[in-house]
Each structure stands twice: as structure tokens, then as C-alpha cells.
């Protein structure tokens, strides 16, 4: 049977594993930490702005399970906050076991505390992944979804140092660029000519440490906006943020909190002693990163050049998705690119033709558009998300943005793609071979 190895169990890796399994492969996820979801453990915002469209497209295409799980642990639905509409906030404290149970239930093999450290390559074909304990995991096709955060050397050289984020590099070891180990140079995101990467755009406060009023509002409405006294406003922070959809004046002038189980604080970092001077925050403490007083993780330091099938260029059997596959920001973006990578990896293993998603769908368009933008001048300075900034504008202009699930279902149906990712390709191929053999 086809063996697909997914390296990195973030949202992209989960999406890839799901699609590869549905397409009929044996799937193994290698995850360096003790939990799935990567940055998804500290995120929580889905379905805001154009992400709604993408999620519904994925559902109509037959690979919507991860969105359903996120919806099922939503703390709030249909939340509006500055620049954003109809967001769903999933509970980051509840979602991981649910996803884990679901994927394991599908028969996906998840190896935790298994850090990929190197690759065995022959003739541009990956033979196996070398784990930190020197075990070698062999497979037919590989999908790299190691994200782009850290490791701490990057956070130190290009940021304010390791701030002890959810990636927990000091405990589980650094992220590794598998594509680079296999001989393909990384694309490195930029902030300016000589500064690399971008800083994660939000941090989390422990909700129980906030004033009663704020806590109650968060629980009830999911969002709280508090004005920051002028002397503590740091507008320059906006320019360093990953999440250009939150790079708005409101985010510098206000404390914007969202209830994701923690109080998600839409600022990359904030000195605790300043924060505690603001009413309602007198006893505040950070939950992620633990050192959010000084900084946040640096990301987009190792993207792989790829085609629109999600294959890494220059290698015969490596796919990629999520932040590894370009300056994508977001869970939705990670899941959607992961689904295509997972599906195509099985096609490749079965010698079937690979597929692109049509550009009349937001998912198909963003995959192709980001690739075009990366090749254009200043491409490495940009980030892309369905949720805001330039790509959301584009969605609106092209008429791709849509908030009615029915209309989206219809679009997918017209393309003949309803349930596309549900098809078990391995069985289909056996049938085809069987038919062929029966003729003789």
C-alpha cells in the first residue's frame, strides 16, 4: 500500500494526512512535540472574512472534517471585531484531543516526540526521514508541513529572542527544513532589505487574571476592546507583524481581546509592567508565549519553492503545505493547502495525473496567486490570507468572497467537484487494473 509520511502535525499536516488517508493511503504523521496543531494550539480564529468562503469550499469539496471539529468546539460564532466579520472562535484548550482522536480513528499513525532531523536522498528522491533518535522512516511520498516558526536562533537573530512559545524548541528541539536538507534552498521572508522573517502577531493572557468586567464581556460576547493610554501605544509594532490583516491603527491604539479559551491579545507582545497599569489588567499574566513581555516567535524563515500541485520544486517526491509552502497566514490556509498536498501525494504515488484546484474557487486561486506573487518583486515581503489585507481585497474584486454556504456548494457542484476529496483513489485504481485484467 502507498505510504505517505507527513512531517509536522500542525493544521497543514493534519489537513494533508486527512486527505491522503481519504484517498486511500497509509499515513504517518511525524510530530516533534507531544501535541498536534502547532500554532493552531494558540490561534483559534476561523471563518473570519474570506476564510468563511474557503472553509465552506473545503466542506463542499469533501474535506471539511477539520472545520466541523473546530466548529464543534467553538466558544463564539459570528463575532465581529475591528476589520473582521463573522468570525468563529474555537476553544484552543479543547480542540487538540478532538482532532487527535478523529485522525487516529481514521487509522492515521501519529508518532509524537519524533523530530525529523535529516533526510536520506538518492537522485532527488527522498528515501526516508531521519529522526533525532536516528530511526529512519521510509515512505513513497513525503509532505513537509513543518511550519516556519523558530527555531530559537532565528527568533534571537531576527527577533527579540526565544519567548517560550507553543513550539517549545528548547524542550522538543528545533524545527528543521526538510526540503533544504534534501538540497532545495529555502525562500526566506523579509521585513526589510536586511531583516528576515516576521513576528507572530498575537499573544494570550490568562483569562482568570483579568478584571471581572473584562472576563464577563469576553465570555458573553467573545470580544473586548480597551483603549490603550497614549503613552503605551507602540505603532511601530504593526510593521513587524505577520498578520497584515491585523496591521490596522485600531490594533495599535486598543487592546483587542478575543475569547479563545484564553484571552487572545491581538498584539505581538506587550511589556507586562505597562499592561498592568491599565484598568482591568492589574494582575494580568501571559499564557503564550510565556515571555510575551519581550517578544514573539519569528516566522516565514524557510518556505519551499513549489508548484500549484503543492510539489516542492527540484525533488521527485516531496510535497509541502501551510507556512512551509509560502507566506500563508492562518489555520484555514494551512488546512486547505494541506488537503491538496495530501490528495496529490497519493495521486503521485499511484502514478495518476496530479490536480490543481480551479481559480474560480478561493482555495485554487490563493494557491496559484501566492506562487505568482512570490516570483514578483517584493514577493518575499508579503503575507497572504483569506482574512484580510491584499488577498481578501482580491477575493472581493474577483467575486470569490461569498458568505452563503448554499451558493458555495452550488459553485463547487457546477465545477463537478462536489465531494472530490472523498474518493478513495487506491480502490479506484485497483478497479481500473481489475477491469483491465478481466478483459483478458
Amino acid at each position, binding site marked *: 500500500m502507498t505510504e505517505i509520511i507527513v512531517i509536522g502535525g500542525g493544521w497543514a499536516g493534519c489537513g494533508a494526512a486527512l486527505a491522503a488517508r481519504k484517498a486511500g493511503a497509509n499515513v504517518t504523521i511525524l510530530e516533534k512535540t507531544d501535541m498536534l496543531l502547532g500554532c493552531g494550539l494558540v490561534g483559534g480564529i476561523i471563518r473570519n472574512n474570506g476564510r468563511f468562503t474557503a472553509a465552506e469550499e473545503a466542506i463542499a469539496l469533501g474535506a471539511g472534517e477539520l472545520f466541523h471539529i473546530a466548529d464543534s468546539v467553538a466558544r463564539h460564532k459570528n463575532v465581529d471585531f475591528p476589520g473582521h466579520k463573522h468570525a468563529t472562535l474555537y476553544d484552543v484548550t479543547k480542540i487538540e484531543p478532538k482532532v487527535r482522536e478523529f485522525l487516529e480513528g481514521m487509522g492515521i499513525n501519529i508518532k509524537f516526540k519524533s523530530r525529523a*532531523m*535529516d*533526510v*536520506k*536522498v538518492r537522485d532527488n528522491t527522498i528515501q526516508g526521514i*531521519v529522526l*533525532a533518535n*536516528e530511526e529512519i522512516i521510509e515512505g513513497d511520498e513525503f509532505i513537509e508541513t513543518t511550519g516556519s516558526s*523558530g*527555531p*530559537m*536562533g*532565528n527568533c*534571537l*537573530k531576527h527577533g527579540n*529572542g*526565544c519567548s517560550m512559545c507553543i513550539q517549545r*524548541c*528548547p524542550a522538543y*528541539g*528545533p524545527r*528543521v*527544513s526538510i526540503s*533544504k*536538507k534534501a538540497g532545495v534552498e*529555502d525562500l*526566506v521572508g523579509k521585513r526589510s532589505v536586511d531583516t*528576515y522573517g516576521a513576528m507572530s502577531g498575537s499573544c494570550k493572557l490568562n483569562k482568570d487574571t483579568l478584571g471581572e468586567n473584562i472576563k464577563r464581556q469576553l465570555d458573553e460576547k467573545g470580544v473586548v476592546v480597551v483603549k490603550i493610554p497614549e503613552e503605551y501605544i507602540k505603532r511601530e509594532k504593526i510593521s513587524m507583524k505577520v498578520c497584515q490583516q491585523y496591521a490596522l491603527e485600531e490594533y495599535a491604539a486598543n487592546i483587542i481581546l478575543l475569547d479563545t479559551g484564553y484571552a487572545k491579545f491581538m498584539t505581538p507582545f506587550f511589556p507586562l509592567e505597562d499592561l498592568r497599569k491599565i484598568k482591568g489588567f492589574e494582575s494580568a499574566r501571559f499564557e503564550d508565549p510565556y515571555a510575551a513581555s519581550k517578544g514573539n516567535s519569528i516566522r516565514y*524563515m*524557510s518556505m519551499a519553492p513549489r508548484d500549484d500541485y503543492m510539489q516542492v520544486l527540484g525533488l521527485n517526491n516531496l510535497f509541502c503545505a501551510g507556512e512551509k509552502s509560502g507566506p500563508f497566514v492562518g489555520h484555514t490556509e494551512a488546512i486547505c493547502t494541506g488537503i491538496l498536498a495530501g490528495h496529490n501525494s497519493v495521486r503521485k504515488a499511484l502514478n495518476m495525473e496530479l490536480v490543481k484546484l480551479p481559480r474560480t474557487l478561493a482555495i485554487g486561486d490563493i494557491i496559484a496567486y501566492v506562487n505568482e506573487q512570490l516570483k514578483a518583486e517584493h514577493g518575499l515581503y508579503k503575507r497572504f490570507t483569506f482574512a484580510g489585507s491584499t488577498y481578501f481585497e482580491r477575493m472581493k474584486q474577483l467575486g470569490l468572497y461569498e458568505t452563503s454556504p448554499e451558493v458555495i456548494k452550488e459553485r463547487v457542484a457546477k465545477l463537478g467537484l462536489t465531494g472530490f476529496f472523498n474518493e478513495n483513489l487506491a480502490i479506484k485504481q485497483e478497479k481500473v487494473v481489475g477491469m483491465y485484467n478481466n478483459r483478458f
Partner: protein
Amino acid sequence: MTLNYYCIDAGSQYCPCHLAKTDNCLICSMLQGKDTCDCRWQGICVYQEYIWAGGKIEERKLLSVPVIEKNFVTDKLVTIKIFIPSASLVRDYNQPGAFAFLRPENSLEYYDVPLCVMDVDESKKIINFAVNIVGPKSKAIARSENKVLIRGPYWNGLFGLKHIKSSYNKHWLIIGRGIGQASIIPVVKNLLRGNNKITVLLDCGNIKVNLAEDELKKLGITPQEFDLNTTFHKMRLREIIEKDGVDFVYSGGSDVQHKFIQNVLNKLSFSIPLIISNNHQLCCGEGVCGSCETLIDGELIHFCKIQLRSEQVLGG
């Protein structure tokens, strides 16, 4: 796949070192002058340590220390006991594979002889070395009377340290030959703490005496006589390994001896890790001078700093 190894000093008080300062760190890509982070992770971030220390590094100090006792065992073999004034420094010498550079007082750096620590008495702060008198450096140190200069501690005196440190209730076969016997006492002491069963074979080799015998007996181990040059003993070696359920083998001696044992082990139907003493020409011990450099799988390896598996060191 790149060669997998680790740096003996990474994470110690002597890390970051001169190599970090000169963009030659063996572990960290940032400290090799690159823009992105891609290290041989050893549980710590060397770059972070370097930045936090403000680019300062801690040097191993050169100490002038008294010689407490000097004993010519034969005309070619002398043991030298020295006194180290600092308890913590003595402790740092008390581990398998530890060595130091010794030279006579009032002599220049190139008289430095790398000597493995034969034994440490922590309570008396005494370290015992054995010197095989072969050339100008060993002759000079053998002639030293009251004081010597010592630079250390260094730790890469054997390959396979992690096996020794993590071994509990295992059976170890230890083979010491010639001056290579000097390295086995710290290994044995460490293994005894892990409640390991220990069988020791001693071959006096060209030093003509079994240097480690008395100390081993004090530790309750009766070493067996052995002669690598006879076919009878070669067979016995195989017999011991196969019949007595040996889990690990430590070879303290020449590369010829290591290779001989490696061959015996390779013929077995199961695999047993071989731990070997480091016999490379060491001069600075810091990865700077290059005297220990060897090309392995296309990578330049500094044997004074790098821990490899014995098969990587010996080839095959």
C-alpha cells in the same frame, strides 16, 4: 544525509568557545556566519548562550600545580600525581574520557602533552596521570620535579561517552592494552556506580606492566591476563562476548586494537556497541589548531571536540 555527531563541549561551561567567536561553531549555523538557524541540536541553543554572554567566552585556565608524587614504574613509564587547588575543577576531571594538557614549568606551549586522567581522588584533590616516555614532550614532563603546568579539563578522550553514562545493570567487557590501560579506571568507576557487571582484560603491551591492575583490585575487580597477539586469546575474546552475554565493549588502546575488536564484533550475529579511546594527535584541544582534523564522509572532523560512533571513527 549529513554525518551525525555532537560536540563534547556544547552546553558545558566552556561553551560557546573559540570556534563560536570565529564563526566556526560545530553545532550552530548562526555561529558559522549564516542567516538562518539550522543546528545540530544538543538540547541548548549555543547562539543564545553566546549572545547572552555578550560574546565573551570562558577559557580553560592554565594552572601551575605541585607534583605530589612521581613514580618511575619502568624506565619508559612514569606516573605523576598532581594537586589541584579547586574542588570543582577536580570534579570536572573526574569523568570517563577526561584529559588535560601538561607541560613542564617554564616551557612553551608546544611542550603540551595530552594525558588522559588515570584516576582522581576527589577528597584529596589529587589527579593521577601516566606518561609513556617516547619523545621530547613526554621526556620533558617526566623530568619535571616540583611543579607542572596544567590546562584543562577536556573531555573527548573516548568515543561513545553516552553509552557509559547511561548504563545500568549491563555487562561490560573492558580491554586495556599498554598505556591505553590508563583510560579505563574512570570508565570502570563510572560503570560501578551504575551497578554494571564488569569483566576486564589487560594486556601489558609495550609498557611491560599492567598499569591498571592494582587499582582495579582495590575496586573489587580481578583483571584477566590477555595477549592480543595470540590466536588462542582471539578465540577467547569471542567466547567471552558470546557466552557471557556482554552488552558493551570498551577498548582502551591503539587503533590497531580497536579495529581488531571491531572485527571480532562484526562477525557476531548481534550488534554490540564498541566504545573506544581517542588516539588522535591532539595539540590545542579547542578545535583551533587543526592537528586532529580528519576527513570523514566529506566532512572535516575535529577529533578533539567531536563525539562520533566508533564505526565512524574507525571506518567500516
